[in-house]
């Protein structure tokens, strides 16, 4: 099969952005300013091309594949494998399935939208290439089907984000950038240890072992999953019970920090508050999903026994993230920090969805990843507009802004409503599905119904903090608006046209996927059922459920 992924989706964005940045850095200050416009137009057009490319993939332009549905477990579309380091079993291996494709499409969608929303970010000759580099690295994570390559791209995403925060961030950007880098890096080093252990513990003498290399071991994910599935069957634990639990925990630590789940979440609010708008949009929109994606791709597929063993822990972590995130939101005074904590809460929903071990819960978690990927950039675009135009994000610092900035107020209201789960908007579908899956799980497995208290409480608290923050910024005041003190009595602007465009597109997509969720949900559901029936049912035969 032709390679539709490596060059257009991964190689070209990364190499092109590096070349642009290298070239621009040799230019004089004056020339750099002149080059900003051609560069951002070129990057915008190119990223629109990427969006067109992935959309064409979905609509069978290249290969007839029924929209990523009906792919058997551990099979991949557009799969392409090149030998990289043959003796060690390292490959450049790329492919897509219903788990990774929505994320790749989301990334290619958010690239042009981020570029449009932050069209006149300062130092644009570096900023826009860096966004593109970020996009290339993120796509690399999602398409990688080789542990080595996966880890390389996993860490590669940190670098552009580090510079985005460091160079374009707020007051305290140095601290935030370092904290973000070191925190997530430490966790992913633990994950790397887990991956390397996974590599070394493959038994080359096993007749089923990978025979393609000198070492008899491989980094190739489909091969490892295949190998693990056979070794997991018949009541056996792949790698042995204790080792499976240890590697599971090591991998999960990396993913839970990235997700982030309470108590590993404190890097997120700092990073978000200091990050520029574009950085926040990509960070919340795609980067957090790397954690959830990793959970699905590796621990869930490789270690179903350990997943069942740690199910209670995972459920508890998800529940704590959900409840704690939303309660802390209510106590925030900074708009962006509140939105960041609401992401923690939403990621808790994903964690719960995975912990239910139901196909419906997994499909819901996948859809939540996707829906939150559309909604949260909208939230951060609104926060960015507040910062950009009013130089303030203090919730209590302003009043009645709707009077002066109707566009901003409308966008804010829409994004806030979408995020609190208004029916007919994308977030609602995912949240409702998680709740139903959780309920089915509790009943089927005989867990206490009290687990439902958390989600029920959070529904109210989430509505409370979103509505309350909205009331305190854009409403309340009637004729007496109170612009933030930072405005110094200057006239109050509304958002610019390019921001309106970006927010409008996101809003339309939120409605589209709220009214017609099946566009994305069908393949996710299919994938979840495939993995449940192909993996969980044969291995954990006695497991109840299957909604």
């Amino acid at each position: 099969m032709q390679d539709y992924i490596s060059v257009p989706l991964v190689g070209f964005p990364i190499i092109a952005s590096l070349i642009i940045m290298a070239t621009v850095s040799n230019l004089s200050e004056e020339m750099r300013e002149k080059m900003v416009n051609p560069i951002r137009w070129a990057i915008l057009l190119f990223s629109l091309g990427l969006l067109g490319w992935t959309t064409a993939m979905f609509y069978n332009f290249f290969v007839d594949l029924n929209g990523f549905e009906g792919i058997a477990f551990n099979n991949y579309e557009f799969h392409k494998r090149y030998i990289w380091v043959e003796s060690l079993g390292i490959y450049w291996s790329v492919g897509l399935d219903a788990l990774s494709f929505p994320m790749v499409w989301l990334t290619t969608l958010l690239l042009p939208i981020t570029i449009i929303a932050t069209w006149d970010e300062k130092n644009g000759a570096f900023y826009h290439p860096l966004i593109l580099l970020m996009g290339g690295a993120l796509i690399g994570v999602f398409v990688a089907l080789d542990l080595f390559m996966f880890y390389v791209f996993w860490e590669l995403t940190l670098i552009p984000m580090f510079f985005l925060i460091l160079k374009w961030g707020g007051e305290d950007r140095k601290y935030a950038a370092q904290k973000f880098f070191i925190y997530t890096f430490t966790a992913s080093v633990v994950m790397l240890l887990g991956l390397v252990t996974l590599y070394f513990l493959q038994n080359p003498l096993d007749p089923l072992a990978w025979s393609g290399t000198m070492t008899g071991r491989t980094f190739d994910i489909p091969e490892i999953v295949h190998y693990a599935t056979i070794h997991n069957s018949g009541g056996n634990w792949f790698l042995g019970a204790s080792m499976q639990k240890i590697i599971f925990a090591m991998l999960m630590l990396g993913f839970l920090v990235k997700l982030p789940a309470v108590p590993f979440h404190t890097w997120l609010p700092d990073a978000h508050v200091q990050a520029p708008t574009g950085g926040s949009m990509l960070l919340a929109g795609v980067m957090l999903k790397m954690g959830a994606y990793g959970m699905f791709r590796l621990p869930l597929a490789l270690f179903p026994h350990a997943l069942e063993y740690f199910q209670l822990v995972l459920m508890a972590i998800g529940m704590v993230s959900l409840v704690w995130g939303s309660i802390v939101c209510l106590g925030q005074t900074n708009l962006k920090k509140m939105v960041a904590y609401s992401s923690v809460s939403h990621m808790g929903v994903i964690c719960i969805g995975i912990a239910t071990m139901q196909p419906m819960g997994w499909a819901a978690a996948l859809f939540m990843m996707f829906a939150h990927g559309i909604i949260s950039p909208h939230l951060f675009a609104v926060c960015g507009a507040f910062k950009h135009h009013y130089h303030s994000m203090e919730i209590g610092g302003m009043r009645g802004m709707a009077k002066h900035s109707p566009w901003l107020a409308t966008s804010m209201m829409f994004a806030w409503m979408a995020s609190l789960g208004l029916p007919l908007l994308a977030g609602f579908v995912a949240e409702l599905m998680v709740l139903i899956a959780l309920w089915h799980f509790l009943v089927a497995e005989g867990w206490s119904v009290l687990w439902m208290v958390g989600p029920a409480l959070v529904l109210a608290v989430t509505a409370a903090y979103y509505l309350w923050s909205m009331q305190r910024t854009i409403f309340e005041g009637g004729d007496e608006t109170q612009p933030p003190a930072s405005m110094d009595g200057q006239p109050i602007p509304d958002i610019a046209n390019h921001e309106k465009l970006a927010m409008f597109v996101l809003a339309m997509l939120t409605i589209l996927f709220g009214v017609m969720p099946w566009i994305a949900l069908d393949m996710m559901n299919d994938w979840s059922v495939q993995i449940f029936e192909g993996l969980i049912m044969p291995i954990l035969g006695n497991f109840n459920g299957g909604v």
Partner: protein
Amino acid sequence: MDWHHDPAAHTIVIVAFGAALFHLFNHAMAKGMLFMASGSVIHEVHHAHHHLHHDDHGDDDEFDAQSMKNMGGLASKMPITATAMLVGSASIMGLPLIGGFWSKEGIIANAWRVALEDPRFFFPAACVLLGAGMTGFYMTRMWVKTFAGKPSNEVAAHVGPTNSWIKTPLFILTFVTLSSVLLAGMGFTHWAPDSEYSFLSDKGLVDGIMYELGHAFANHDAFFFILTYVAIALSAILGPFMAMSLFGGKLEEGEDCKPWFKPVIALNNWVYNKYNWDNTGIATSGLAIALQNRLYIDKYYDLAMVKIVAGFSNKAAETDTKIIDGAVKQIEDKSQKISTIVRSLTTGSARDYILWVAIGTLLIFFFIWGVA
């Protein structure tokens, strides 16, 4: 009585459904009309206020266009609105033959029918009667305070008629409310078929009306016969009488009103002059003040929200920064301190390094020796 399994109980429930559904309809018409009419009054009072005080547009404006204290004597100034309000009030009160009377009477009768069967339902049945009397009081109070009596201030004296966009729906709703008797005759209280007859079936319109009239005013059952007149006495006589004795009165001298208001205002004037009494004691009693403050439920609800929920979430946010993130910062701080100590070993002096190499070599020897 076994409500789930006794078929005898089911007929009671079904007939009450019919009355309740009919009441939903009547209530929708009358209450919609009342809101629209009161909106029209508020709009005109506001307008009159602005007209009179057009030079002071200050925000310190204390004038409340919704307060009945700022109205009075509007019957001569807003005839259509006053008519709609009168018909709507009568319908809500259950004044005989008008709108809500038909359904309300059915509900009261059924409530008592159930109470006779099952004594647990005596309390709700009594509440229904009490409610009917109180409705008679407060609806009359609203009408006479707004439309009868003398204008309470300069603003009320300058209120103009309402505009025709509001008049049209008011007229339609008034018409529907007044023609409720026809709907009753069509068997609207019998949506769900009962033992006697069903909606739009056996009886013609005239027969239906005659049946409903007879059923309401000349019931064969002595208990229900008396009950009807007790309900009418409470909601259409005692309640309005109490309200008229306290509020309203004659219109301003020289003000003329439509002929259908005249008996109402004359009655009001007569009751007001003859039976007026001082209600300050009740109005300033603790119960009245508690009721004005909605029994303080909102107050304590707000208090609980602000103090408990917001307080807890603020504490949670603090905990998140100080304890969870504090732990991370502690790790960061300690590891930096350790690295400072370790860094101090890097002296740059060749003698130190040779010493370390020597120690290391010795250690390796010891280990090899130990293992071997």
